[in-house]
């Protein structure tokens, strides 16, 4: 059974078809890329999968179970975590508190965990993921006062804390300097080596080529190609989509 199966997924905004009958799937342990020109529906696709938008057709199966109609928190509780194009963290909280908000929410007793505070197990995991991204020294700083690159790393650590089965990363290397791009790319590589399944929206083709085993290409909401990064970069339809000829 594939980990993620998307069949004929469709999302309309009035007359605009943002996602048009898209089929795609991935197995456990894969690192798959999603590319396409701006406005081709990549982020919208993510939003439909995670329940932020209700879809207008098709279905999404995660571990064989449908995700349609589920609220975003239920989707996350099933083991699907997601980062946003512009790093979304809680600026009013410290890095450590941000991590606390990101802990696993499915098995908790609704009243017990919030009252009791952090279990030692969770504290340990928080510390270790902060170390993984190199932010241990800043854990008591307010997230709003660290740099954007550090906020992106924080968001990384947050979505990893709950040990999700599938990670949806929306442009993980956008908006940061080249050194940070390499840092994030190597983090992603490490996660892949740890066996995580990653679905990555990216514009940086170097990063896509070095990290993704397979790539899907969207244009105007339709899937126009799939294959290895090399195959896809030579596909004439893809070249036409990006360059117009």
């Amino acid at each position, binding site marked *: 059974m594939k980990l993620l199966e998307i069949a004929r997924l469709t999302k309309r905004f009035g007359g605009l078809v943002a996602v048009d009958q898209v089929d795609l799937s991935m197995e456990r342990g894969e690192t798959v890329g999603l590319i396409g020109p701006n406005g081709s529906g990549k982020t919208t696709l993510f939003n439909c999968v995670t329940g932020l938008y209700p879809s207008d057709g098709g279905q999404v199966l995660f571990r064989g179970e449908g995700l349609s109609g589920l609220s975003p*928190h239920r989707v*996350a509780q099933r083991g699907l975590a997601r980062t946003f194009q512009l790093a979304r963290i*809680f600026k009013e909280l410290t890095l450590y508190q941000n991590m606390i908000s990101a802990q696993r929410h499915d098995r908790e007793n609704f009243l017990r*965990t919030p009252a009791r505070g952090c279990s030692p197990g969770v504290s340990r995991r928080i510390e270790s993921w902060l170390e993984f991204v190199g932010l241990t020294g800043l854990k008591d700083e307010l997230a709003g006062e660290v740099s954007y690159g550090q906020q992106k790393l924080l968001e990384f650590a947050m979505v990893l804390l709950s040990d999700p089965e599938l990670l949806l990363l929306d442009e993980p290397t956008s908006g940061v300097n080249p050194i940070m791009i390499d840092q994030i790319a190597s983090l992603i590589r490490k996660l892949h080596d740890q066996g995580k399944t990653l679905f990555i929206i990216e514009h940086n083709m170097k990063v896509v080529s070095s990290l993704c085993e397979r790539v899907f290409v969207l244009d105007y909401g339709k899937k126009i190609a799939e294959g290895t990064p090399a195959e896809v970069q030579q596909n004439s339809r893809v070249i036409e989509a990006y360059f117009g000829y």
Partner: protein
Amino acid sequence: MDGIQKLRIRNVPAFFGFLGCLALYPWIFTDPFPRHVMIILFMYIILGQAWNILGGYSGQISIGNHIFFALGAYTSTMLLLKAGLPPWLGVIPGMIIASASAVFIGQICFDLRGHYFAIATLGLAEITAIVFVNWNFVNRAFGFQIPAMKPPNLYVQWTSKVPYYYIALILAAAVVAFVWKIDRSTLGIYLKAIKEDEERAKSLGIDSRRYKLLAFVLSAVMTALAGTFYAQYVLYIDPDSLLNLEFGLLIIILPMVGGMGTVLGPVLGAGVLIPLAEYTRSVFGGGGRGVHLLLYGLIILLIAVYEPRGLVGIYRRIKRRYTKTKTSE
């Protein structure tokens, strides 16, 4: 080292020290008026903190919290008058009815975004007022007057203000301590996250609706408790005094001016504005009855323009500037 604001060691003794001073207050000020001002102040601290849990921490601005105040007051009073139930016990059904109402209102209204939720709660409060004024069961506009009942300790009514003072002080202190605990806890983190970016919180797996309902229930219960206290203090309740708009607005203005989403905000807001109202009322007498409203308007204007984070924000700004100048030396 868990990163959650550790119990700042100097805070706890300071808190109890401050409570100790407040406990001595009735012995220093033996006139009924200063005692009355403090009792009302404590009551507004409770109301402000209750509102703060929902508005300041989880971000749902409600202008209808006085509904729960009325529910608490009417429930305990009617149980007292019709069934002889002492208010110590009667307060509990009031809190239960208030929490059920909060769940009901929340389920319907939480889907409304931001300002629309505020308008909806405001509308509900007005509807409740109109219903009460026309409903025989709650004695319409006449309301209820609580007659003298003995023994006073059982029926929560005294001629002296002193027992009221201590009850109000204890309740206010308990409520402040409770909000303090929430602020430092994981629940506090979840609520602040929900307030800042509800979609992001949900994407992390947080069931924001459930936590907001919890905040709403806590808010309603504390407000209802204050309602019962008020009924026993004033011994007369009617829709006009409990469900009027000015009261509903005052409940939200005090914590907003003091500082939403902080533990001290509602305390400072009430601490500054309530004595201001009560003393201008007494100084200016009949003709100056509205003076406090002018001052309130001015203060709200200044806060909104210069420091939306309220009095707590001003305090933090001063503290930051003071520490900056210290380190630059």
